[in-house]
């Protein structure tokens, strides 16, 4: 950690707060040149792995994944996708252990999962849900145009801000992949969060056929949960086995049953996005057209 601190010192930056962690990544709030940024530090090793070959394999994979995330953020840009900060991607050895770090802009606000929890029974109005869904569809369209699949859309990866010009910002493209040739994540990682994964991604061979419709499913599940306060398929407490089973076998609740005050066309659209079979989900362009008419 001293090495990282020294590195930050050299950039005239200092850690002001720990934000959270997930997998191999930790996120800190830092101050650099009087501005807040989010520092993302990924450890490129597993302290429990004793096989040096596996350790090397893991390092290569984590490095590829982190590099890919940074290059995708650069490639995509846009108002509703997080942008990079002032510290470029760097690999640092600290105590002979490799770390990958870079900064992103700091987005004030709360993640959607926190917003859902805080909302409780005080559910958001239609305009807010509509804004979220419309924003997300536009982002998915950007992904589609760039032949990118996010693979981990969930409330934890969407920031709800107080800024009316960008009320929702998507971040964490760590397991996104570029269909145009970037090597895919190997099987070391189970991509995506089970609760929000599309059923087809549970197929061991899904990588050969996955497309943007899987992201559409995950995003519709996220939007449903924000709108209704409950997940459309999974009850709040379920074992991974139950979650797996429900994802494959139990049809999603209909949004109208939870939000009768919402327009039927919107509820119907969300329901269609939550169909088990990708073929039954709407085309993105059609979904955007429906949203424009609402």
């Amino acid at each position, binding site marked *: 950690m001293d090495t990282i601190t020294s590195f930050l010192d050299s950039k005239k930056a200092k850690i002001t707060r720990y934000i959270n962690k997930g997998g191999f990544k930790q996120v800190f709030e830092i101050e650099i040149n009087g501005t807040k940024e989010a520092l993302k530090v990924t450890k490129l090793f597993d302290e429990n792995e004793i096989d040096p070959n596996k350790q090397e394999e893991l390092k290569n994979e984590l490095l590829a994944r982190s590099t890919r995330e940074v290059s995708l953020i650069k490639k995509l840009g846009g108002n509703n996708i997080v942008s990079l900060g002032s510290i470029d991607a760097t690999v640092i050895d600290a105590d002979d252990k490799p770390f990958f770090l870079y900064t992103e802009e700091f987005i004030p606000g709360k993640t959607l999962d926190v917003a859902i929890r805080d909302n409780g029974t005080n559910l958001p109005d239609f305009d807010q849900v509509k804004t979220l869904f419309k924003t997300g569809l536009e982002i998915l369209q950007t992904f589609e145009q760039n032949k990118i699949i996010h693979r981990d859309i969930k409330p934890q990866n969407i920031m709800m801000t107080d800024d009316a010009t960008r009320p929702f910002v998507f971040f964490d493209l760590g397991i996104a992949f570029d269909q145009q040739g970037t090597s895919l994540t190997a099987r070391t990682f189970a991509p995506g969060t089970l609760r929000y994964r599309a059923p*087809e991604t549970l197929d061991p061979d899904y990588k050969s*056929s996955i*497309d943007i*419709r899987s992201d559409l499913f995950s995003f519709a599940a996220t939007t449903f949960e924000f709108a209704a306060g409950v997940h459309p398929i999974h009850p709040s407490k379920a074992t991974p086995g139950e979650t797996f089973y429900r994802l494959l076998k139990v*049809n999603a609740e209909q949004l109208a049953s939870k939000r009768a005050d919402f327009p039927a066309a919107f509820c119907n659209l969300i329901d*269609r996005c939550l*169909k*088990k*079979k*990708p*073929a*039954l*989900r*709407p*085309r993105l*362009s*059609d979904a955007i057209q429906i949203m424009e008419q609402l």
Partner: protein
Amino acid sequence: MPVLAQHGYGAGSKIQTALENGYIDGCIFSSKDIPQEKFLAAIADINKSKDKASIYFDPQYYATTIAQEPNAKLGYLASDYTNYFSSKTLRDLRREKNVSSEAEKVIRFQKETLNLSNIIAPNILIQDGLNSASSSISKNFLEIGAEKATDASAEKQTLLTLALDQSCFRSSQDLLDLVDEITGMNLNVKGFYILVETSKEDGPNPWYTPEILAGQMYLAYALSQNGYEVVFGYSFLPAPYLWAAGANSIACGWFNTLRYFSMNRFRDLSKGGRKANRRYLSNATWYPMEWTQVQMLPRSLNLMNGFETDNLYTKPQGDKRPNEEDEILQYWDSLKNKEKYVLKAPYAEARTQQLLEDLKRQTVALAGIRTGGRVPYADEMLRGCLRSLALFAEFAEFTLTV
């Protein structure tokens, strides 16, 4: 524009009469059965009979792979449509370059030579299942056909042909995967022209075979949910099921070979045979019965539709028209009215539920007739249709209330 005439040999005045009386809304012409010059004249006649009629030209490219067979019967395809039609083997079409030039020729011929507003892109018949060589080639035709339509600025008017034989319905999972793949291609076209090689009502795999009927319904449903227009060619009794699922149009003709798609239409099988007795399609039973049988049954069974075309059967027509003309006008009229009934429900799930109720009524109607053993396939047909609806509901993720 839901009912179309599937054109073929011996069109006579059937199409004009049906258009003028509002039984049909347009026509899919068969290139095999009409020379190019007459085709252009036929379009003019249709436009006189009905404003804004839907006119399609089926290039029948799928016959290309049997063109070298000794008993191939290609009609005008081999003489008038050589701009795009010639014999090709599956081996020839494995090369994408060849698929590309073939697709371009067929689309440009319709757009530039025939100046059509609806275009049907070419394809071959998928045979030997959905993991076959023909399946790979067919998918190439879909992707390349869409590209060529865009190149010709015809993407908004082009239907891609998808032709499937019965083997494609053997594995439901393979069919679901095919639909997943096609919808994932994000093809920028108006829609699909679907042909399914089934046997006629009394064949080994009749139209109500659950895997085949439910599979067709799923194709209609998924493609329409993805914003595509779906037109089923050579379709007759499955029509209400296809409309319920999301098909926009079905095309049906006056001979059995124009109601049930088969590649044998392009082979000289020299079968001959006697002329069939005139049949009557009652919307109460959805089962074409011989007219002489209908006449013998008690009126209390209410088999007569009460539509305009009943007059063709009940009032003497003299020798003005051949039987098959009365029959197809009556069939088209029944189809048109059945379509109105199906579309009373607002969306696919409700329409499917409505068809289930209709099947219950058919069961009662057929039970009244069956006492004399006059409807040999009725039980099998009802069971097949019922199972088809259940299977389709499963595919489409619906819940039907029985």
